[in-house]
């Protein structure tokens, strides 16, 4: 039996009809048509489904959709300030080659955003630690870390986050 779950997704009030045993990941991808969030393992091992829930990064595959009742969810689709302007993190991932196949990229960018929201000046070790639960199989992480560092630097220069 489906239940209606109300949540704010990327600033928009949504009501999604989901079975009580379905995950937030399935609800976002199937009922919410937000397929930018990826399913790499469905058991919390890979981080491809990372979204920000009430300000904290979560594996959307480990959250039941009904647990998100009343929650505020940010996904990769909500990151751009406007349609023709990517978020700074997105720009830096493009410049530094932080995405190859791109499947882990939305999750990694959301995790990086959660990190920079908390810690605007992370060391390389702190970035590596923050991304420890996000598997990337293409890049060796070098260019991902370059992109996150470059974002942090630019944000500091601009004095905003």
């Amino acid at each position, binding site marked *: 039996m489906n239940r209606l779950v109300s949540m704010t997704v990327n600033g928009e009030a949504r009501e999604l009809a989901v079975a009580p045993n379905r995950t937030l990941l399935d609800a976002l991808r199937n009922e919410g048509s*937000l397929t930018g969030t990826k399913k790499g393992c469905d058991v919390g091992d890979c981080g491809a489904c990372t979204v920000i829930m009430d300000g904290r990064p979560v594996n959307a595959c480990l959250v039941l959709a009904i647990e998100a009742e009343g929650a505020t969810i940010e996904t990769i689709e909500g990151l751009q300030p406007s349609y023709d302007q990517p978020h700074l993190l997105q720009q830096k991932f493009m410049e530094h080659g932080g995405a190859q*196949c791109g499947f882990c990229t939305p999750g990694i960018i959301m995790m990086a955003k959660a990190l920079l929201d908390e810690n605007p000046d992370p060391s390389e070790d702190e970035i590596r630690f923050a991304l420890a639960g996000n598997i990337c199989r293409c890049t060796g992480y070098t260019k991902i870390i370059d992109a996150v560092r470059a974002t942090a630097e630019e944000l500091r220069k601009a004095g905003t986050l």
Partner: protein
Amino acid sequence: MNTYERIDRDLSDRDFTVVGKSVKRSDTLEKVTGTARYAGDVALPGMLHAKMKRSNVAHARIRSIDTSKALALKGVKAVLTHQDVPRVLHAGSPHPRSASVTRDQYILDDRVRYWGEGVAAVAAVSEEIAERAVALIEVEYEPLPGLFTIEAASEPGAPPIHENGLDRNHVLPPVFVTRGDVDKGFAEADLILEREYDLGRPTPAYMEPNVCVSQWDGNGKLTMWTSTQSAFMVRGTLAEVLGVPLNKVRVVVDHMGGGFGAKQDLFQNEFLCALLARQTGRPVRMEFSRKETFLGGRSRHPGKIWLKQGFTKDGRIVAREARVTFNSGAYGSHGPGVTNVGTAALTSLYRCENVRLEGRCIYTNSPIAGAFRGYGVVQTYYALDLMMDEAAEKLGFDPAEFKLMNAVREGDIAPSGHPIVGHGLGDCIRRVMEETNWHELRRREKPESVKRRGIGIGCEMHGSSAYPGIKEQGNAIVKMNEDGTVTLITGTAGLGTGAHTALSQIVAEELGVPFEAVSVVQGDTDIVPWDIGAFASHTTYLGGRAAQLAAADVRRQVLEHAAPLLQAEPADLAIRDGFVVVTSGSNRSIRLSEAVGPKRGMPAMQLVGVGTYMPTKSYSFAAHFAEVEVDTETGEVAVLEVVPVHEIGRVIHPIAAAGQIEGGIQQGIGHTLSEDYVIDLTDGRSLNPSFVDYKMPLSMDMPSIRTIILETAPDPGGPYGAKGVGEDPIIAIGPAIANAIYDAIGVRFHHYPITPEQVLNALKSKANETRQ
């Protein structure tokens, strides 16, 4: 600083405007914004969800399958077993024109040959109901003896895993390669080394699980969205097995989430998804779980390599003999190709005139080995490079100098039979030594502490095409629009390497237009020209060259049209920055859009160029430096730094090329130190089909990497001299690490992965030996 690129451009014969620049990759905006569409993102009205029933035995005949309970479940629309599907023997990886395909698979068979093989499929209104229905299918098996190792399966009298297979479960007749006189060589040797190397079972573990969506239209035409590196091979095999002509199958791949070679195969799902869609009259989606992606996926070939070499005191290799035996798993897949390529590779890298090689590939009741980055060469060069390190020490040479002395050079005959172009390998070894202060580091004091450091160098070379095993072909169509912008229509698939960006750069360079003026149409077999698929490190080399030829064809047409307008001969014209310019004795020019656009009373010119390229072979080279730290209390090996030096002819996109190198190093560190997909040797069950139990190096494990790219041996066959880079890094890093471990703790391992437990045991035995 984590990484940088520095390019030695020793052979700059011209100034480039787009090639060699790290332009913004044309596919990444979609990827970073979450709008890139992967096969699993396709949702169609009325779509059903399919799941596969997988065997829980490794080798058995199916006595009966009872699907009645599954069919009775509300929401189930169709169930297929071996009794309901076409029985057509087909190749798992059907490379057209390849002499060595192995036709040994059915969509579903009345027999299973490995644990986890698909035996039935269900389509239902939801994935959850499909899963429940799969659990309700009852299969009765008649067990057959499980042959899990190459030894058991290739014993005289071993029962055949395939009815019409060769004797002793050989996938192909043994491969023999002989050059010179090996016996004479050994007779001249001052030192003979003989070792056996044992190689584990890493898997590509791409992030996107296998997935496809099928839909038939009212005219009996199938459209399939799937995650594949070789859309035209999927099309061809689907058509053949389902008995429909090619124009009734359309395969679409917008983006794919990694493949690393393995996604050249078909995985039962494509056929079952298509058949379920045809039977139900509704679109069907079938997505593997991560566990299924392990179970039904493809691994690198595990195997054993017996290697014997003779050396002279002055450091030459006078004889090389090897027996390479690969474990193919339950089906042939890429076994023939991997065996041929991996075995023949041992003729080269380090010069030796007398070689005698034998390669075998054996069916076993274990997971299917397929194509995986490095394609047999990861295994054989691991053995070869490790033995070079050992020989250097025994003969009193520095290992890097010894490898440099013996490095293949210009004019030597490559494994493919072609003469090698340039001195790429020597250049890489010299550069890596300079860059790391190799000799100084070697002289460094090594304190007897708990954590011990060591350094090593590993080398490799790899072909930028599958020639001569496969006669490849790349095709491209280039159109110039009336405003001077360009559309490239390419068959080249995008695995995520940035291939389409590189191809666009080549087209822009050739046509004298900015990178942004080129857009790409790709990934639809109904639209793009035929392509063999993205593999063998050949996309830039092959697809790039085809695109260059097509663009050159358009340029010729543009200049012909512009000539009367500029009152000049086409030979005196060039295209620069979007203008057609007169190059001699005048500075007259017109905009491209004026040259090709509509004029009074005349429509615009339709300029279309077609390029077809059939390459032979080129080789790329690499030498990797690795520094490791071995914890003598835990046995753990940490890789502290890697300096990869690659010679790839011409760099089209430095950041993308470096990204290939760094990602390959990540996977190579994995198979050398931790990654091994293990089966239980009593029943063939997979023991670690998950990301928690299959250990890959992640952000905390990855060392700093200083990537250096050389352009010292451009290949005349590649676009602007470019060669491949995708597979090279994963081959060189393994021996660099194993050699560094020896330098750290004085133990030579002859296998991978080298696990902490084995390091500890080896240190213990070494301590015992010293005591005695």
